[in-house]
């Protein structure tokens, strides 16, 4: 009984801490002008909250370099088991690809996704993208490509001396970003308004994206 009470209190504390974290990020994003603070990010729940907040504040473009939309942080490894804070990103992701993408603010090629592996192409996140690609009105807005080995090595070298580190990053509206430098622990740096960081990351992204292979056909199969 006492143990149940204690664990209930811990859950409550954790929920409170996540709420505080959400408030902190909302505060940065809603500042006028938007805060240029560079902050760190760690853990699946905080990563989910940050990515959801970044996505929610995106108005016209998103460039994402990731493993391959692995279901884990999105909809859970066992699809549908995302609950609590972990669900924040999935909720926003679905909203983005089902509703917000229809906005005229998102023009042709304004959403670019560059993946490292095609392992999760049949999973729920990609199913959402397939719906967009299958829609003639929306398909031009999004491009999905797989990175070449050379380009991947070049990104890893550019971001750090240790080429084994599997970096991921996303750039939103050319000013907000999240750079993950320890994917296993979701350790990352981010900012809601850092054009200097974003231009450096965009340079890397553009170079890699231009030499990457389009996988639209495979997604639609």
């Amino acid at each position: 009984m006492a143990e149940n009470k204690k664990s209930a209190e811990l859950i409550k504390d954790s929920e409170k801490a996540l709420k505080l974290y959400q408030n902190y990020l909302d505060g940065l994003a809603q500042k006028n002008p938007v805060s240029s603070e560079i902050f760190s990010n760690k853990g699946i729940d905080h990563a989910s909250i940050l990515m959801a907040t970044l996505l929610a504040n995106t108005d016209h473009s998103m460039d994402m370099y990731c493993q391959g939309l692995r279901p884990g942080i999105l909809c859970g490894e066992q699809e549908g088991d995302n609950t609590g804070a972990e669900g924040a990103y999935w909720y926003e992701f679905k909203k983005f690809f089902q509703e917000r993408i229809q906005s005229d603010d998102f023009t042709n090629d304004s959403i670019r996704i560059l993946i490292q592996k095609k392992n999760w192409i049949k999973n729920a996140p990609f199913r959402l993208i397939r719906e967009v690609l299958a829609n003639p009105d929306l398909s031009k807005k999004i491009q999905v490509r797989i990175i070449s080995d050379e380009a991947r090595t070049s990104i890893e070298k550019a971001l750090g001396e240790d080429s084994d580190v599997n970096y991921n990053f996303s750039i939103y509206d050319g000013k907000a970003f999240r750079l993950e430098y320890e994917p296993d622990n979701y350790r990352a740096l981010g900012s809601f308004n850092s054009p200097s960081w974003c231009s450096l990351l965009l340079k890397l992204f553009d170079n890699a994206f231009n030499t990457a292979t389009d996988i639209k056909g495979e997604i639609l199969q």
Partner: protein
Amino acid sequence: MIFCDIFLKFEYLPTFVPLIQLLVGSVFMANFIANKNGLLPETIQLGQIQAEGWDDALGYRLAEEPVFSNDFRLLQTRTMFVLALYGCFTLFYCSIFRCCYRPSPFGMAVLSFIVLVFQLYSIIILGKNRPNKTYIQIFIIISIVLFFLFIVLFPDIFVFSEKCNYIITIATNICVLFNMIIWSGLYIKKEILLKRVPLLINNLKLDIQIASLPGVEPRLQYIASILESENSNILYQKAIDTLKRDDLYFTKSSTGQTFDNHLIERIKDIINSSDFNQTDKAKIIATINEHPQVNTPQSFISIPQERETIFKESSKRLIELGFIEKVSK
């Protein structure tokens, strides 16, 4: 003995001392309520605003309400405890002596009992948690009402025998002295904290911001913007100090890329027009001129490590002060 005799010569002193105590207690509590509601002077709020933040990488959270550090809160709670205890003592002994020397009416006894229960309840509340403002407000109102009851409506309650007066005077003044010591300590500590904390937090924030920027040029750009804005003397001073340092920021390997000369000139102009003496100015400018010119994404990798080192150093003190708490995940 001489000390007590002096006090006893002022026959109304025992009457006024509790009055002063109640008023001081009320002021203190009103101040506390004001603090709780954010009705603070601007200088204090500065610390509050700039202390908000997280560092997930290290598992630290800057406290959300940093105006009072944890140790300050603890002291405050202790003081409230002493005040409540003393309030209890003051009112209780009045009732007891009233009963002993002039049998009190039934209403007086009931009132004393209510006061006693309330005071004890306050002690429990204060001992367990940070005081709830509703209780404090009730406490202030009851204190004032009781004061009028005892002093205005029932003034004879404070007329005691000489022996009792003697004991009451000593006890009262010990409490006054005790409260004064606590109060002085509290305010000195508060002053120290309020002066130190914004400085520490600004240093920390600036260190993190600078260390987080990729390459020296964005760092200089950021420092130049601070120097130009001059919004905060603390930040200005810190930016100058940062420029003086060549151990952390300006010793990366060169890739041959050139700086934005305009930026360098801008910083030099700012430094030349600053209040620093000529030696310092020359030193800073020499540092800028000499360091390798780096602006490459290669410094990305060093950022988390730099940041970690900086944050660990700065956060030690802030944790001690209670402005940063460890976040367990």
